[in-house]
């Protein structure tokens, strides 16, 4: 199949991106050398979320493995705006694909400063707004409130021509309502899902396992939930949707695209294989076209192997 896609004016060679915070191109280059840049697996690179000030992140343990997935409570460690612009941006600019910078701030003023400073850099092709954060003014999680989300976009939209992608949180009853608000506020695209609130217990002490007490669940375990949220959101908005959540194969990616996603992102699967996204892209290229519903809804495509008569 033809794989080129466009997200808010940004042309991408294929629909496979990375989920923010699940691939560090700079660290990967230290581990794998320039070879990883040569066969860079993503059509655009999404940075880990940066914040105005540096953050050390949460105390360990930060990860817990679950059935077909994992919980993380990383806590957005990052060098802060300045450190990112000075030390990371020049290295990320060496990548062969467009750079999408993920940003988060608590409070509109802070968010403005961040978006302003990042958007003006020519190395940056687009911004992803991580709104899974409390708004210091209202105390509410922006991404859980359509009104908060629309209001934030109305403030940020005028600051740049570059595509603004809103990363939606799945921890809501109706993600489509938030997506519609983001579109109304001027977002060029939405991406989902972020991780789902989760926790784990130390089997020995029976106290919270994670240093931060709680975290977010990702991986194949959440795929069916992500697919439903992507379907609901894609049906509700007209801007492109970047779908993610447990995608591990071309078949998974196809399911998200069929559900209405314009592109998909690979997150936790990168941890199992640094080139998982490359495999997924190749599986997409080689995927057969969908078989039209033969046996009337019925045993459609569901009868493998033996079918005498």
């Amino acid at each position: 199949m033809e794989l080129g896609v466009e997200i808010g004016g940004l042309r991408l060679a294929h629909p496979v991106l990375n989920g923010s915070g699940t691939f560090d191109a700079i660290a990967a280059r230290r581990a794998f050398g320039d070879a990883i840049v040569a066969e860079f697996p993503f059509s655009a690179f999404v940075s880990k979320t940066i914040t105005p000030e540096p953050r050390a992140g949460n105390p360990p343990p930060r990860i817990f493995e679950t059935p077909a997935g994992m919980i993380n409570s990383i806590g957005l460690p990052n060098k802060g705006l300045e450190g990112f612009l000075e030390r990371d941006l020049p290295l990320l600019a060496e990548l062969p694909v467009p750079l999408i910078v993920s940003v988060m701030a608590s409070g509109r003023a802070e968010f403005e400063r961040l978006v302003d400073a990042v958007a003006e850099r020519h190395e940056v092709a687009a911004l992803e707004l991580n709104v899974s954060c409390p708004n210091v003014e209202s105390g509410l999680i922006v991404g859980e409130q359509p009104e908060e989300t629309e209001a934030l976009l109305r403030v940020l939209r005028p600051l740049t021509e570059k595509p603004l992608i809103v990363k939606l949180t799945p921890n809501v009853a109706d993600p489509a309502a938030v997506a519609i608000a983001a579109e109304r506020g001027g977002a060029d695209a939405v991406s989902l899902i972020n991780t789902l609130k989760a926790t784990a217990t130390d089997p020995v002490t029976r106290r919270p396992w994670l240093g931060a007490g709680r975290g977010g669940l990702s991986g194949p375990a959440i795929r069916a939930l992500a697919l439903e949220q992507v379907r609901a959101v894609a049906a509700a908005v007209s801007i492109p949707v970047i779908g993610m959540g447990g995608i591990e194969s071309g078949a998974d990616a196809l399911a998200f695209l069929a559900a209405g996603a314009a592109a998909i992102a690979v997150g936790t699967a990168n941890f199992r294989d640094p080139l998982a996204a490359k495999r997924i892209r190749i599986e997409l290229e080689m995927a057969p076209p969908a078989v039209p519903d033969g046996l009337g809804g019925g045993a459609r495509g569901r009868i493998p192997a033996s079918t005498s008569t």
Partner: protein
Amino acid sequence: MNGPETAASRPRSEGRATAPPGRRLCEVIANRASGGYRIFSALDPVGPEPGAGQFYMLAAMDGWGQRDGRPYVPRAFSVAEAVREEDGTRLDFLVESVGPGTERLAGLRPGEGLWVTGPLGRGFSPPDELGVGVAGAVLVGGGIGIAPLAILRRQLAERGAPVRTLLGFRDREHTGGIDELFACCEARLATEDGHAGHRGYVTDLLSVLLEGDAARSAAVYACGPPAMLERVRTMCAVREVACELAMEAPMACGFGACFGCAVPLAGGGYMRLCIDGPVVNGAEVETALVAGSGH
């Protein structure tokens, strides 16, 4: 990348063996019991010779995820020995079964497929890089932690560095790898149940050794459970002996992608052990007792 930068987080060219990108399928060519542990070997057709202290992320091709959906992510393993063979490099791993992942890997049958990513991380430094006039090495291993010291010992010996090896184990079931991995040359043992060598802790042997003069010109290389590493770290700090520790932390990726393997830095903030470690300078970290760590 997180919090204050460590000297090691300089991008690229840091004298580590870089890994082929992505995971690759290798064939398991051997798996034998060694005391209470097992040693399994895989033939790596394309990877470079690993440096001592580097590790690999491993996952069985089949049966991964068989216990309540776990293991899901690959598991980190220090390479215990690496031997060039005509059709690749034989990688030896020493494994102790403590959960679903190690259980599955300990049960690998020759001919099975093993997903391998690596070599990863920063290995041990040569003694002379750890201090002026430092030439010799004291290796301190505890339990399964003796694995990376085996290949380190061989590589140091090849450089002609004088090496003394101290190995500690809890009891019979938690002893293994000595004959296979330290056959070449004598190693002093300590066991808590006294079934072999000194009855007590390997750190008892170390303290005696650190009293001697030789200590001045030697660096300490340690790998083992957090409690042992922390003891070694403080002993060396007090006596101003350079020491490197091969640490552990829960790892999901092994190449700096997940930020899960945080180890607190002496200067505040955290390092990612997989990319800035797993070998750390004793002075670099705040403690070796990291929550969730320990094999």
